[in-house]
């Protein structure tokens, strides 16, 4: 197991490197640069700016400088749009915010989602099942760009209970709406996956056998059915976890949270190369790590799995 983890971590290095190189060239071929604007800069001014950021160098040199700066100084370069800040600043400021509301939303979505799904499956075709299913569909039917305005209208304008946006160091009243808005649609999906996976497991031979042996339902579910049920759910949760952890652009936009989601999408739209690359590397690293964890989790859910 340990050697497997080490091997996977070693593979992570070339993986991230390929990601960086691919993203780097992707960015360079995409039309429009960071300094393309409504009023095109005079060539001389543009040349000065490009010289300042080293963009006048050949591509391979730019890539090389970028990589060596990361390795030697852990410096991910300047932001071309937010000129008073660099990539390290932007990630250091946005990531903790996204991490906070993202992990809360993730917890809410997975706990409530799994619970709804399990309950619905156990009481298949009962009113509990129907209620859970309706809640799941309801949650799925309200993507965050509908949830955002609805929440703000309800809690801020009509009820006057919660502030309409901002972060304020992550105080609870600023957290509620972002967490709800971000978690609902995932909650619905997780409930749905859990329910059908559980139904399938409950129908399988080994559970039937366990039940036939006269084991109490609770024991059967907890001891035997839970692990195989969660296997596909965990595969789904992996990418979701990475996604919510790095924040959601909708949540950041609607609730002015200042998270990384907005910085990420914004940097792609403004071609703020270094910011985009920096967040992509963070995203890639998280993906690799989280997928390693889920792979390890598989082995726990199903001890027979070998890689």
């Amino acid at each position: 197991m340990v050697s497997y983890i080490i091997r996977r971590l070693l593979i992570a290095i070339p993986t991230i490197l390929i990601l960086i190189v691919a993203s780097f060239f992707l960015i360079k071929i995409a039309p429009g640069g960071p300094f393309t604007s409504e009023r095109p800069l005079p060539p001389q001014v543009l040349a000065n700016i490009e010289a300042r950021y080293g963009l006048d160098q050949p591509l391979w040199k730019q890539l090389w400088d970028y990589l060596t700066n990361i390795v030697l100084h852990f410096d991910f370069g300047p932001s071309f749009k937010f000129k008073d800040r660099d990539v390290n600043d932007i990630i250091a400021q946005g990531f903790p915010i996204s991490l906070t509301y993202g992990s809360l939303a993730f917890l809410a979505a997975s706990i409530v989602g799994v619970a709804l799904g399990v309950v619905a499956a156990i009481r298949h075709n009962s009113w509990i099942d129907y209620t859970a299913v309706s809640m799941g569909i309801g949650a799925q039917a309200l993507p965050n760009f509908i949830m955002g305005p609805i929440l703000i209208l309800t809690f801020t304008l009509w009820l006057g209970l919660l502030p309409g946006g901002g972060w304020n160091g992550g105080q609870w009243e600023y957290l509620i709406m972002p967490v709800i808005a971000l978690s609902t649609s995932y909650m619905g999906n997780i409930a749905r996956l859990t329910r059908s996976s559980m139904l399938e497991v409950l129908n399988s031979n080994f559970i039937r056998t366990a039940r036939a042996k006269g084991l109490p339902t609770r024991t059967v579910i907890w001891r035997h059915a839970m692990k195989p049920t969660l296997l596909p759910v965990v595969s789904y949760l992996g990418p979701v976890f990475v996604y919510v952890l790095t924040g959601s652009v909708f949540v950041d936009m609607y609730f002015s949270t200042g998270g990384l989601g907005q910085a990420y999408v914004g940097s792609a739209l403004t071609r703020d190369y270094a910011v985009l690359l920096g967040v992509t590397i963070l995203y890639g690293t998280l993906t690799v790590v989280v997928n390693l964890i889920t792979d390890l989790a598989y082995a726990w859910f199903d001890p027979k799995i070998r890689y």
Partner: protein
Amino acid sequence: MKHMSKLALATLLSTTMLTGAAIAESHVPEGVTLAEDQTFTYRQLDEFSSLDPQVVEDVDGANVVRDLFEGLMNQDAEGNLVPGVATGYEASEDKMTYTFNLREDAKWSNGDPVTANDFVYAWRRAVDPELASPYQWFMELMSIENAAEIIAGDMAPEELGVKAVDDYTFEVQLTAPLPYFPQMTTHATTFPAPQSVIEEHGDEWTRPENIVSNGAYVLTEHLPNERSVRERNEMYWDNENTVIDRVVALVINDENVALTRYLAGELDQTDIPAGQYPSLKEEYPEQAVSFPRLCNYYYTFNLSDSGPEAFQDVNVRKALALAVDRDIITERVMQGGQPPAYTFTPAAVAGFEPPQLEWAGMEQSERDQMAKDLLAEAGYGPDNPLEFEMVYNTSEAHEKVAVALSQMWKQKLGVQATLANMEWKVFLEERGNQNFELARGAWCGDYNEASTFLDLLDSDSGYNDGKFSNGRVDELLEQAKTSDERAPLYTEVEQILYEEMPVIPIYHYAGVYMNDTDLGGWPVDNVEQNWYSKNLYKIAE
């Protein structure tokens, strides 16, 4: 020439001014009871690009910088020049040398005096290739001696034509007698910069913990993409007359969310989303305001070789322009009090006299008839319909206008216009490379003068995406650069634009805001919307 006389007056006044404090009066009208809490909270569309006066390039950032730093001259509520750090200026006979007299009581927020050297440092900094400010071109446009050479890297920044005659006298040498030069000193790029602080903290000097500024406010808090807070600068020379204690800018991208939060009482000011002005005006007549701005909105034909053959025919261009019912666009689509546009330059521009164009006075039905005739003359009709693609960048408001235009053309002229939205940077790239047939465009004036708009249609302009080229227009614009009688030149250019129709003017912008009733002093008459928090006040309710 209202514009020029105003300038002359300002010059005259400045030489006779004694001290700034003597003329600065309280801007709060008599009889107003001020509120206890003087906090002004407003919505900011986007995170600002920078708070460095020489680097900032966006409107949101410039609004903050104008509060934090004070340049030579300021604008009043009508957009007229009033003293800033300079109590006034003198222009030499040939208008090539300007001398600004600085007030002696101006201080930085750390207590240091603001001197002419701070301006020398800042202006050199603005043109320094090493700083690589995106607004270097502005300094070049100001025609300061050697600016162009320094930007090109052929001279050292120290050679810039500015000098501190003494601590309180700042002198500028120009290469051309630019008539609107003093106006340009209200622009953020020309604001002073604290050399010692910048040298100590480098790129991080604008952080709240480092920044030193000379304006009415200092930055106390900055949470990117969330909020920034600026508070009264006790060292400011006119601190006594500053009413607002604290200014909070909240970044809210979504205008509908911003309006909701305004209605929930979280903001004193926000923008009104397109189409919502009439109903808000009815419900909150005191709060919804609309006033003209210095921006235009147009569609440009691609007249280069890569453009469609059809647009080479002036009759086609005219037909399309005539068939646009501008009243529908302004009154039923935008609905925010935008003036319909029959000229490229907004009528609100100072010193601009719009020509009496025949189409501006016609009924829409007459324009439609004329459009049909012109298109038929050009050889297009039911059996040979005109087809083209029109591009715009993705945005709800642009899309509404584009759809309305295409439907007008389709129903009135049988023209088949395909709509294509594009992501902003792709759009700019395609438009800039003449990879389009008809493209949306908009322009906001850099200063309050017609040339800031009309220069776009100069053959050599880097902004001339439609590649319109007319010798007479170029000639007139060249003359205007040094002429004292500029209005007739601009009027003639507009006349030619009507005859040639290289662009379809649609409407001119309006500032459409919700201003809370307890917010006083908002400069609705300042068409450039250069506002200063120090001139605002909160009224007790």
